[in-house]
């Protein structure tokens, strides 16, 4: 992807490998993507596809060991995050680069009041006085839709419901007005009516702050409604990337096609048989030869068993890694 002036974060050839008892696990293996100001990139995949590890690696939050130091380049604000001294990185994390997690109950500190956790961000990164930080925190809690924020700021995480906790996490992540927000399955633990509220909230805040969002999710429905572009991951690599309209209207990779076909939807005739993808996601420690999707792929030929596919370019913004896809594009 061509770097434009708008690009705030660019990930090039990121590799995060883990040394485990079962051998080398290539959780992320040559992943490249970028996000522009105000844009949402949907990073889609199943568990073990490497989507979360890719985000954690971008912020250098993967513990080493067991992981080897990630390789590749992550360009942000003219620097490479992977080679930046830890102290400089800490000035960016939680400030210009923020992350929200799937489960806000484990991501928030149960021993500290919500206010303490929020004001810490401002005091550390912006040198705010405690009183100013508190004011800003209450304002942000109100903005994310927490009623009676002035009182609730002194409560502890367990006193909030799941949806409210996720709002607290979002407030914390956005307090310093980050340029990039990594949202790792932010609504997966929530009920569907609350999910709709939270996705709307992220969209509104993003529009007003111009934040670029990397939205990690397994739910193609969530991506369809929120992402500008989509990157589909399988076995540690991006197998297809394009604008949301391109990927949904003309999925190139058989895995993307399979995911779309296998989803139960409410807008198709009832009791229609689902087109399931056969087989199981691969064990990352023992990847199949060639294209890692070939054992589950209906279209796989000899080439697919031998070598990782070359990239097929369908448009300046739409590409996929598949040997057989010319036939279907």
């Amino acid at each position, binding site marked *: 992807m061509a770097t434009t002036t708008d690009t705030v974060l660019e990930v090039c050839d990121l590799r995060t490998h883990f040394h485990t008892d079962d051998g080398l696990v290539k959780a992320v293996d040559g992943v490249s993507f970028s996000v522009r100001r105000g844009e949402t990139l949907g990073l889609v995949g*199943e*568990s073990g596809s490497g989507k979360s590890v890719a985000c954690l690696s971008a912020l250098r939050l993967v513990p080493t060991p067991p992981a080897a130091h990630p390789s590749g380049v992550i360009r942000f604000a003219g620097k490479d995050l992977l080679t930046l001294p830890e102290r400089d990185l800490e000035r960016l994390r939680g400030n210009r680069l923020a992350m929200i997690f799937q489960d806000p109950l484990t991501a928030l500190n149960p021993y500290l009041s919500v206010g303490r956790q929020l004001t810490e961000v401002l005091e550390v990164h912006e040198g705010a006085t405690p009183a100013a930080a508190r004011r800003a925190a209450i304002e942000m809690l109100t903005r994310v839709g927490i009623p009676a924020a002035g009182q609730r700021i002194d409560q502890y995480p367990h006193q909030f*419901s*799941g*949806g*409210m906790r996720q709002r607290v996490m979002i407030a914390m992540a956005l307090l310093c007005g980050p340029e990039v927000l990594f949202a790792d399955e932010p609504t997966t633990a929530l*009920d*569907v*009516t*609350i*999910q*709709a*509220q939270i996705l*709307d909230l992220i969209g509104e805040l993003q529009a007003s702050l111009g934040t670029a969002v990397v939205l990690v999710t*397994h*739910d*193609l*429905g*969530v*991506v*369809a*409604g929120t992402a500008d572009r989509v990157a589909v991951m399988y076995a540690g690599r991006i197998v297809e990337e394009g604008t*949301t*309209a391109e990927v*949904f209207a003309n999925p190139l990779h058989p895995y993307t096609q*399979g*995911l*779309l076909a*296998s*989803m*139960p*939807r*409410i*807008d198709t*005739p*009832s*009791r*229609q*048989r*689902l*087109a*399931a*993808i*056969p087989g*199981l*996601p691969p064990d990352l420690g023992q990847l199949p030869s060639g294209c890692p999707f070939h054992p589950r792929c209906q279209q796989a030929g000899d080439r697919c068993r031998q070598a990782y596919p070359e990239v097929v370019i369908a448009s300046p913004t739409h590409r996929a890694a598949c040997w057989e896809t010319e036939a279907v594009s």
Partner: protein
Amino acid sequence: MTVVPAKAAPLLIVDDLAVRFPVPRAGGWLAQRQGEVRAVDGVSFSVAKGETLGLVGESGCGKSTTGRAVLQLLRPAAGKVIFDGEPIHEYWRRQGGRWVWESRLRDLRKRLQMIFQDPFASLNPRMTVEAILAEPLRNFGIAAGSQRRERIQQLLQTVGMDPRAIRRYPHEFSGGQRQRIGIARALALGPDLIVADEPISALDVSIQAQIINLLADLRERLGLTLIFIAHDLAAVRHISDRIAVMYLGRIVEMAPAQTIIDQPRHPYTQALISAVPLPDPARERSRQRTILTGELPSPVSPPSGCPFHTRCPLREERCRHDVPVLQQITPGHQVACHLVE
């Protein structure tokens, strides 16, 4: 009130079912007096033989508790559960201060089975697949020795697994395969009614479709009657003949699956459907959404009147005071809402 489809006598009739759990009263852990949460309140439905009823709702709506009370894994506080003509809610007796099953209920267990949500928690990690599947057979004295092993291998084939898996342990399998083992266990005794409690929500997207298809196939092949419990309306719709939508322990709407999706009448059902994301960018971005404000109220102190009134975009004064009853609006379509005529 129950609606019986004309085609067949119902295998299961649930009438005015209630389940209550004791909870400490507000005042902290030192509080002496016990309160109670009405997890399920006044739930009635019937399921015909071979039919699949979907129970949907958000966390805390009582759908799982309903499933467990139907199978008598929980003792109902009130109401009736009639299975194949037998009042199974009465098959309990006091023993040493506890409620236990009467032997008749234990016998019926062969015909009443459950599939659990979490395939990691519901299989004993220290037992081989053979031991897991042998347990129900041994408990009911079905087959022994080489016959039992044959039966277990057949069960594995029925759920699409390699019969050689019998010597392996649960941790050697993926989530989807474990769920298949859980399904094989539920099938071991040849049940008539299976309650599947969120059987796919712990699974990967590409595996969910496999399990839904498997359940649909087994239902046809074995003539099973299913209660399919899930929070995912799209998945429930795919497998169900009828759907009951629950909110705070009550059924708020019940209708044939396609009717629920096409003509939802309860404001909650409408909001629930509009919140289900569509994997179609153009339609997803252009459609009208009803985004509910607020959170699910605590079942410990449910709102007065209609339990949904605190979040309902259409609420009126009477909704605050009067509990709406589930009424039939067209044959087979029931709604509990003051605003639906």
